[in-house]
């Protein structure tokens, strides 16, 4: 089975602070990708960052970085210097390269950045 769990339904931080969103996943496959997507009120799902499971180095995209712990099946997202525009729902997702080949999403974390 391919499952993704986000245990934080909501989070709120002040502008310019650093925030970390948690995600755990479960799969028996060894070849997969992990993603974080952002969904603002406009509903558009926007790709934030991608991690290939075979890479040990954590992915980074400007203010966004991940902490990928493969053995623990953990994939957290860190947002540095948070901005008001970061306010959105954040979804963690896994993608199996063999087999299902579909994104399986977690339940989401609603992040609010306060001025």
């Amino acid at each position, binding site marked *: 089975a391919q499952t993704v769990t986000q245990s934080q339904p909501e989070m709120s931080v002040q502008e310019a602070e650093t925030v970390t969103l948690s995600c755990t996943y479960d799969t028996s496959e060894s070849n997969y990708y992990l993603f974080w997507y952002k969904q603002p009120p406009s509903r*558009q799902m926007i790709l934030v960052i991608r991690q290939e499971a075979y890479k040990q180095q954590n992915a980074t995209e400007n203010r966004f970085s991940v902490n990928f712990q493969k053995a623990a099946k953990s994939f957290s997202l860190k947002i540095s210097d948070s901005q008001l525009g970061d306010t959105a729902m954040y979804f963690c997702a896994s993608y199996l390269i063999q087999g299902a080949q579909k994104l399986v999403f977690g339940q989401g974390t609603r992040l609010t950045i306060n001025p």
Partner: protein
Amino acid sequence: EAGVVQSPRYKIIEKKQPVAFWCNPISGHNTLYWYRQNLGQGPELLIRYENEEAVDDSQLPKDRFSAERLKGVDSTLKIQPAELGDSAVYLCASSLDQEKKQFFGPGTRLTVL
């Protein structure tokens, strides 16, 4: 480069009526996905196309849902007849197979009364 285009953005219908959603993927993307997103949840895959072939429709309720992707480009998702439980956001996404990054459209919010 234009993103994934979907129409309409909103649709309100009465139950038992038919409804159709349209998606135009990013140019050159061979893989197209339809997802359904219920309120407060993450999207769930309905169907995946590789070019014009539906390679995974295991989650598509085939008694009332149908989809097509003519010529491997645009796609249409249809519901007939709609039920109250079909109220959701329907998202279309596309990707280049080798990149595995899916790019989403703005979605269609369906309300069934």
